[in-house]
């Protein structure tokens, strides 16, 4: 059957949110969105997740904050950012007019701060959902983040879900013994979706000076290097959860994105690829469309979870 470009239906329905296509730009790799306006049409994205926001402005880590490793990038930005008030005053009015899903990545140094961020943002218009970044170091538990245990994940998600007027996507950390258990805890607590993975805790050092290459010593690894592990985790989580899964980790091409859908993700996020090519996310959408055309797939959602393991 010959299909023309227009016939592929790229839209996906997350239940609480319909996206015009399955590609979101990932938090922390897409600034506040506006940085990318010179390079792509933001409305061609399924949506984008803005950089993680704490309540107040945040200083971030001392440099160096980035180091490249083979096919990967380790970052230790330390979630530097402008805080919710400046975001609402300066950025959100410009995002509100866009016909695409704007998702805010919510951070907190303790559960109260997550709640305060959501409470403040609930009073603003123009946000489609919150992505709860449960990988933030917690001041009350010696820097451990909520993502590390099912209990802390459950407590935080439950509290935020009860308080929020918007859907919650819980973003999982891969730095755990069993990501499935954490995902299930988030689901039990009422999350509307899960997103995975965040970056892998990593380190690089300089042999000659014997010093760590990052100011913060540790950082998070992203990029093509993590894709196979991320894909495995998405597959495992998607096969156990009822809520939709948003997959990410090293997606550089339309084929990469489609693999995550086949593994069970309802949508994907594109991160590090946007640094290499500011228009990567939009290119990935058109590559997915072309693949669907070539393979007679009329609606991209048809391939979600079609991995053949038997």
């Amino acid at each position, binding site marked *: 059957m010959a299909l023309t470009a227009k016939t592929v239906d790229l839209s996906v329905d997350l239940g609480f949110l319909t996206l015009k296509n399955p590609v979101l730009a990932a938090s922390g790799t*897409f600034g506040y969105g506006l940085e990318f306006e*010179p390079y792509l049409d933001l409305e061609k994205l399924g949506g984008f997740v803005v950089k993680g926001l704490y309540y107040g402005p945040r200083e*971030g880590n001392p*440099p160096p904050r*980035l180091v*490249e490793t083979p*096919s990967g990038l380790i*970052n230790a930005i330390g979630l530097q950012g402008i805080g919710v008030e400046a975001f609402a005053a300066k950025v959100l009015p410009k995002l509100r007019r866009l016909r695409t899903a704007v998702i805010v990545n919510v951070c907190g140094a303790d559960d109260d701060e997550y709640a305060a961020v959501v409470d403040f943002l609930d009073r603003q218009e123009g946000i489609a959902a919150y992505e709860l970044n449960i990988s933030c170091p917690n001041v009350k538990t010696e820097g451990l983040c909520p993502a590390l245990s099912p209990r802390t994940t459950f407590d935080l998600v439950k509290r935020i879900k009860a308080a929020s007027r918007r859907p919650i996507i819980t973003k999982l950390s891969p730095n755990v013994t069993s990501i499935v258990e954490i995902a299930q805890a988030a689901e039990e607590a009422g999350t509307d979706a899960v997103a995975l993975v965040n970056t892998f805790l990593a380190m690089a050092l300089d042999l000659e000076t014997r010093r760590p290459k990052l100011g913060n010593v540790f950082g998070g690894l992203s990029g093509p290097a993590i894709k196979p592990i991320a894909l495995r985790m998405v597959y495992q989580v998607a096969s156990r959860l009822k809520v939709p899964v948003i997959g990410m980790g090293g997606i*550089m091409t339309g084929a990469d994105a489609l693999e995550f859908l086949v593994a069970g993700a309802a949508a994907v996020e594109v991160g590090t690829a*946007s640094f290499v090519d500011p228009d990567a996310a939009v290119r990935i959408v058109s590559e997915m469309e072309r693949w669907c055309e070539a393979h007679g797939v009329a609606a991209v959602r048809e391939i979600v979870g079609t991995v053949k393991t038997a």
Partner: protein
Amino acid sequence: MTIERNARLRAVRSWGDYFHFSVEAPAVGRGARPGQFVMVKVDDCTSPLLRRPLGIHDADAGGIELFFKVAGAGTGILSRKKPGDRLDIIGPLGKGFTVGDGLKGKKAYLVGGGRGIAPLFFLGRALAAAGARPAVFYGGRTAADIPLCDKFEQAGFELHCSTDDGSFGFSGFVTALVENEIIRAKPAIVYACGPDPMMKVLASITAKHAVPAEFSLESIMGCGIGACWGCVHRIKDGTGDGWVKICEEGPVFPGERILWL
């Protein structure tokens, strides 16, 4: 700010580890100002993954010139490109040097260390066009590290060279050479690009002699467009200081705003 995916490499010149590229990239060249930079994709591979920042060595309506030193894998791959090859570049990015009208008839000192000379040719031309009197101070470790002396001389610039080992020009650091000249004839402004230690010394020299100065800073860059917050330096503003993205607010900053760590 545009992406030129198919910028044709017109010509290559090289001196040991140093390379000069002339690139056909009208959309980048047209809007470029001295001190701005481009992000170059060195290859369609994932290792190296990121683009590399390079200063705009010169620009006109037809394209740009680059001047770089091979520092590692990325610049190594770039150095093996041949005329006719295509480059994928984003630019012009960042805010450049200030070339004020007030400089007409006045002296401006341009100080470049090693590969840091790259943006100063374009700046020198702009200053000359604005009626200023630029003098270029070009320092390197050895004579092999200052391959652009002829180019600056042929373009008619007043040129002072130095090498750390004394193999060419003034023997010693370029900063000492600059300080001697500042004492002899105080310029209206000093512009600099080079290794951090050089710029740090120069910052204290220009502060001591009360000469305004602008420095082009370097950092590893994730995106070059203000999206990753990876490229920060400690910068002062009206109220205090903080980590500022140099790709967006810089890479050029006035000396008094930079905290040298």
